[in-house]
């Protein structure tokens, strides 16, 4: 139980004494990721701002490490809690290393001069978040994906117990998004940081979270593990969509966790295979790129797309983990093929 680092009690959040959300109760453990999902304007950012003490609670309390957040000294709070906001930092004439170094703020003296130990900490964190090569680059000239990583490094540099992120992946393309979230998960586990963030990408939320908190219409609707939340038509209900419309677009049925890409030009490329059998890796088959050597039988369509007939890895949900376990080996094979080996 003492692993719980952040919890709330009867929390109501809002602006100017007007509650937007009531009865926000949850707890987050060290090393765990909690994701807030819900429609725009439901109050995800309001919760995050309250947790960061940028807003005071309308009612109830936030406890950080068992201590009430409200009377905490600013510097003490800064050493325990760091944020990555949607605010675009206006860093004039600052290199990425300078921006990361601002995370050392709560640890420096009156004038904020960095000690050698602080500089080492900055370098370590930058290596951990894979932004070392950006050190000397002008922060205002890096891409969105790089910027988010730098801001993550800055927050980690604060050596927090709790990390709050407001829609950290919103401007990122799929590659950067996966990159960012993978790094975030590794950080949370390694440094035992509790992460609370809001996400719009439900597929990401489903995969990365230990806990999902659903916010709707003035209340917290559900809190639970992803598989408890992403069931049936719940997503449609949460976002006020027609029942079944989310799946009609993204595919899947029942409690399926992965989505078919019906928008794909080759859909359904697995001709003849029962739909229930290949819902997950449909468009991301790790063996696909192996071409002739994938081990299954297939033919090429008129569009030149490989269409599997008898897959070596029947795309059943239970096979997904097995595919991932073999992924390093498979991707090495795929790379070998690219280089004409």
């Amino acid at each position, binding site marked *: 139980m003492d692993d719980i680092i952040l919890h709330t009690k009867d929390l109501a959040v809002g602006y100017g004494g007007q509650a937007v959300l009531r009865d926000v109760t949850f707890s987050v453990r060290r090393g765990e990721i909690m994701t807030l999902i819900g429609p725009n304007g439901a109050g995800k950012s309001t919760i995050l701002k309250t947790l960061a*003490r940028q807003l005071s609670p309308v009612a109830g309390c936030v406890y950080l490490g068992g201590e009430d957040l409200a009377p905490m000294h600013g510097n003490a709070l800064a050493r325990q809690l760091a944020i990555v906001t949607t605010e675009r930092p206006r860093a*004039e004439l*600052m290199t990425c290393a*300078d921006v990361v170094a601002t*995370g050392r*703020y709560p640890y420096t003296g009156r004038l*904020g001069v960095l000690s050698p130990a602080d500089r080492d900490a900055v370098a370590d964190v930058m290596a951990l978040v894979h932004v070392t090569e950006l050190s000397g680059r002008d922060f205002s000239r890096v891409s969105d994906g790089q910027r988010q990583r730098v801001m993550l490094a800055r927050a980690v540099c604060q050596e927090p117990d709790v990390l709050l992120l407001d829609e950290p992946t919103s401007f990122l393309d799929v590659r950067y998004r996966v990159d960012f979230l993978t790094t975030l998960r590794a950080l949370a586990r390694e440094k035992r940081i509790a992460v609370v963030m809001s996400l719009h990408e439900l597929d990401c939320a489903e995969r990365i979270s230990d806990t999902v908190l659903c916010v709707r219409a003035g209340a917290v609707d559900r809190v639970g593990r992803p598989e408890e939340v992403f069931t049936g038509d719940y997503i449609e209900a949460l976002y006020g969509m027609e029942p079944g419309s989310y799946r009609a677009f993204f595919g899947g049925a029942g409690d399926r966790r992965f989505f078919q890409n019906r928008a794909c030009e080759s859909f359904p490329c697995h001709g003849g295979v029962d739909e229930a059998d290949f819902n997950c890796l449909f468009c991301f088959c790790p063996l696909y790129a192996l071409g002739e050597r994938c081990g299954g039988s297939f033919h090429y369509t008129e569009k030149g797309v490989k269409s599997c007939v008898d897959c070596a890895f029947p795309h059943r949900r239970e096979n997904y983990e097995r595919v991932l376990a073999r992924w390093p080996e498979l991707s090495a094979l795929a790379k070998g093929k690219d280089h004409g080996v």
Partner: protein
Amino acid sequence: MEGRKRRCAWAFALLLALLLALLAANLSIGSVRVGADELRDALRARGAVETLGRVVWTLRLPRLLAAALLGGALAVSGFLLQTFFANPIAGPFVLGISSGAKLTVALMLIAALACGRTPGSAAMIGAAFCGSMLAMGFILLVSARVRNLSLLVVCGVMVGYICNAVTELVVTFADDANIVNLHNWSMGSFSGVRWSNVRVIAWVTLAGTALSFLLSKPMSAYQLGEGYAQNMGVNLRRFRLELILLSSVLSACVTAFAGPISFVGVAAPHLMKSLFRTAKPIVMIPACFLGGAAFCLLCDLLARTLFAPTELSISSVTAVFGAPIVIWMLLKRKAA
């Protein structure tokens, strides 16, 4: 990292050399040219006897000290405002704060002169500070309503015009004897500064700059944005108040003694940022002070000598140098 430190050291050395050269030039160049030997004698004698010594000691030295200190104060004040509004074209003149101070000082002067008294330095600074705060209050009200930075600057310029108009009106109806004085002052000039003034100026500007320097840590956090500053443990409310008060005191001190001086508050910090290639307050505050001092010394030298014996108003010289820099910055911002 090392390269940057070297650049800073090099830039500071350059700045100091420039400042010393300008100080020397300001001492020796003028209606009477003063050579190095004569200068040394004059300074040693503290203006006791000869005419030349008196010129140097009672006219030039206080004037150049005032120009340097007030120029530095203006640049620091501009840098504080730029940090506060996160806008590189904010400055005491652009936002109408100097004009607000000018109005209250003019009112105070006329009232005091009507009673047959000459107000002291403290009263002048006090009046200027009240005017600064009034104009600042208005700008803050506007900035709470509009987030658009250009609009803020337009509002500031308008406030400046209104204050100038009222000042003109007041000056027009003042006693004939005072008009000339008031008119000179309201155009901006370093002439007529006495040693007693210099003492007050030195106290206020140096203390203000030192206090600003102590704020450089929260300022550097604030430069990232309010949310981040708050998260890093900055007490935002207190910090903002300190920033506003310091920038107002500094620019009020300038207006009280030299009238409104245009564009130094914008141009000097910008030049310093380009020279030092950083916006870190811990470097920028001393750099701005030195840079502003050098800028004003140069402008004052030109104002005195360009069309001697006629003296130009300091604002018209600073505008010639400063305004193009501001325009260039606006264009660059637009492009970025």
